[in-house]
């Protein structure tokens, strides 16, 4: 089961969890936000790639919980709890929420910042501290979390690569 250096991929409006030595990655975050919840001691982490701030915005009867900040972070915490992680041990790192275009309908244009706001509010509600963040701006990001080191690697097209 455990294969060295295997990367678990998380799609858009999707989530998953990973144990060391595997890493977890999501590609091409724009206005979306990638949230990593991790337990430093157990070397286990989860990632969710949310698109919208609030599930009340959903207009279909069946919702995908991983799409919204308010439902996605909670669902990810539940997944980690099922793996024996105590919520008290969880920490968060977040990235994304950029403004890719300079125009748009008034609500859509601010979707990146609104997503970031909603993510912070939900993490606060769940009492999960944010250890590091790389949010805002106007660049897309690909992020990969390594639970062994608890490091989040962030790659952008124009600004290079960094670790937080």
């Amino acid at each position, binding site marked *: 089961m455990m294969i060295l250096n295997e990367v678990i991929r998380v799609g858009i409006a999707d989530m998953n969890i990973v144990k060391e030595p595997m890493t977890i990655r999501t590609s091409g975050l724009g206005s979306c936000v990638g949230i990593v919840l991790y337990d430093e001691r157990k070397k286990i982490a989860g990632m969710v790639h949310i698109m*919208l701030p609030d599930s009340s915005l959903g207009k279909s009867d069946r919702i995908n919980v991983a799409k919204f900040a308010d439902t996605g972070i909670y669902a990810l915490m539940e997944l980690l709890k099922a793996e024996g992680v105590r919520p008290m041990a969880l920490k968060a790192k977040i990235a994304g929420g950029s403004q*890719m275009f300079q125009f*748009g309908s008034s609500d859509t244009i601010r979707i990146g910042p609104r997503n970031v706001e909603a993510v912070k509010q939900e993490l606060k509600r769940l009492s999960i501290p944010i250890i590091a963040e790389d949010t805002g701006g106007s660049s897309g990001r690909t992020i990969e979390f390594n639970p062994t080191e608890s490091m989040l690697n962030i790659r952008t097209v124009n600004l290079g690569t960094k670790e937080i």
Partner: protein
Amino acid sequence: MNSDNKITDMHLDVLKEVGNIGAAHAATSLSQLLNRKIDMHVPNVKLVSFDEMFDLAGGAETIVAGIFLRIEGDLSGSMFFVLPVESANHFIRRLIEDETFDFASPNLPEIGVSAMQELGNILSGSYLSALSDFTGLKIYPTVPSLSVDMVGAIVSFGLIEISHYSDEVIVIDTQIREEGEEGISSVNGHFFLLPDPPSYVTIFRSLGVM
């Protein structure tokens, strides 16, 4: 769409026809602008997941020059003109007659950016006016905006509106190819029309298939 009126193959065929008419007009405009023979056709109209949508454009991390605009009026949706950086360079170098222009350079000269936006304007304008004539619907494009970045980051912005309704999207995919000298195709790109889900019914009604 709710469960009562499912999208059928016939609906997708109708959308493909819509796309072909728009593509034919856009190809003519682009050929005139560049004085080259440009081929556009609609290989695909399908219902895909958001991740599959990125795959159509080369994968979430592919770096592209992406033009985005919203369409408003009787129907609403997003439109993208997505070119790999190399293809975008090729188009714009020819258009502004500057062989050194590069979308990958950190300080983009303004003239190249506005040329690319103008390209988006002309393409979407001719595509959408054909669509408007065909359906009898009033359609207004917003001013196009350019971003050079990862496909996932660019296209996901146009999926925000759709994501309120669904985790899938009907994509009318138009492939753009330049019929190159000596059979070499130097340019390839995509033109995506993504109607907002409430507009599906509007389009089908206007064409008498619902």
